[in-house]
């Protein structure tokens, strides 16, 4: 489990930030992206994927959340 921060990028896309490893990357896909259900498996541009417990969408970004690493690139 790692603390990550999700924010909006310049083009409105989600940007993933993992402070521990200074990893900043765009999110290519998020399993659930509706106001009621948000999170699930997220895929990063670098090929890595993380899992956020599905929850209601945060009211405001950036948003810090715990995420589980499923498959890190490298």
């Amino acid at each position, binding site marked *: 489990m790692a603390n990550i*921060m999700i*924010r909006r990028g310049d083009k409105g896309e989600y940007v993933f*930030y993992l*402070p521990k490893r*200074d990893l900043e990357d765009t999110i290519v896909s998020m399993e659930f992206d509706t106001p009621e259900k948000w999170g699930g498996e997220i895929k990063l541009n*670098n090929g890595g994927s993380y899992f956020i417990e599905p929850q209601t969408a945060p009211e*405001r970004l*950036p948003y810090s959340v715990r995420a589980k690493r499923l498959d890190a690139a490298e």
Partner: protein
Amino acid sequence: MSNLTREETEALIAEVLEVYPDKAKKDRAKHLAVNDQSIEQSKKCITSNRKSLPGVMTIRGCAYAGSRGVVWGPIKDMIHISHGPVGCGQYSRAGRRNYYIGTTGVNTFVTMNFTSDFQEKDIVFGGDKKLAKIITEIEELFPLVKGISVQSECPIGLIGDDIEAVSKKASAAINKPVVPVRCEGFRGVSQSLGHHIANDAIRDWVLDVKKEDTSFVPSPYDVTVIGDYNIGGDAWSSRILLEEMGLRVIAQWSGDGSLAEMELTPKAKLNLLHCYRSMNYISRHMEEKYGIPWMEYNFFGPTKIAESLRKIAAFFDESIQKKCEEVIAKYQPMVDAVVAKYKPRLTGKRVMLYVGGLRPRHVIGSYEDLGMEVVGTGYEFAHGDDYDRTIKEMGNATLLYDDVTGFEFEEFVKKVKPDLIGSGIKEKYIFQKMGIPFRQMHSWDYSGPYHGYDGFAIFARDMDMTLNNPCWNKLIPPWKKPAAEGEDMAKAA
């Protein structure tokens, strides 16, 4: 010498690595790379933010340097106690030339050194009592001080002193903020972790303190300058451009900055981030907690300045955008004059850089505006996200080196033969003795400012002064010069 091709650069790296034992070679190979603009992710070509190899000459600093020296040090109306033995504070005192306005020793204290001067008995019995005593003494001697920060040196962490408890108690006693910073030198691999620790200390001990205070009247055009340490007056030459655009700069972090400015920062509309490496942490925190967007900008060289000013203006309404164009137009004749004067003297010259965590990519634009080319660049303590940003700025097949060792840097220079090197004081005399013009890019070689339009004029003059200095022809003594030349001189005599 013409530029190296990709194969030649790769061969050069392989040749330089040849001298290491196998294990060291494997490790160092990951830190040296040939730039390839098609790569989006820097970690595919370069590894960074790893422990330096024992036995090599590294140029890195420690976490204490990152916190006391970089982030906290320039805050002018606070006293920063170097808590521990006397050396750390004394040898880093006033070295970064963070300019500030105020009367030193009365209401500002940046160039002074305050230390708890640890002795053997403090290591054995703990230094908490001493720290408490120092804080009371400071309050008595310098009543105008606005706050105190305790910057731990290595022994504090090793003997386990509870500086937090002392600080809390002292803070209540003197009724001023006392901030304990756990920036012991042994933490992390370089000064980079010190920046992070310092940012976290600001987050925990400074930002929320004055949130009940409503005396500050916000305006829609409040911005802050974050990550500008006012080296040689950099923040001032940046600030005037923003103010001419109609924005109000409510805080400078941390060059010429004060505690009150930092406490006000959560009331800004936009955080402008210059040094990404040392202050992105606090900017991200403020974005999440207070909803203040942040934006990286670059005030080196007219091309990047105009680009950044327009990007900043795009955040605000049309009146600001109009004034932004006026500012750019106003300075254009000055820029044209500088370029007309210096570009012919500097064009085509090749530069190698090796600086801290921001300038290796930020100053590239400045050199390009003068017709110069950066053929190699590297960081002391950058992380992956810095290299992501660097790859786009650098040309293809140029050299990238992370935490370069003394040996590697010298060998690269011998082979690449740049016309100018920009790095720090520790490299300066080696390269000058090798006959290569050199500028210190940490402290602007006691010149500056280099930010903003005014800074660009100084930058261009300095580069010309260094590169075209007549001394570089005089390095070979007359008796070692080729015979033909000697005869000419004899005739002339």
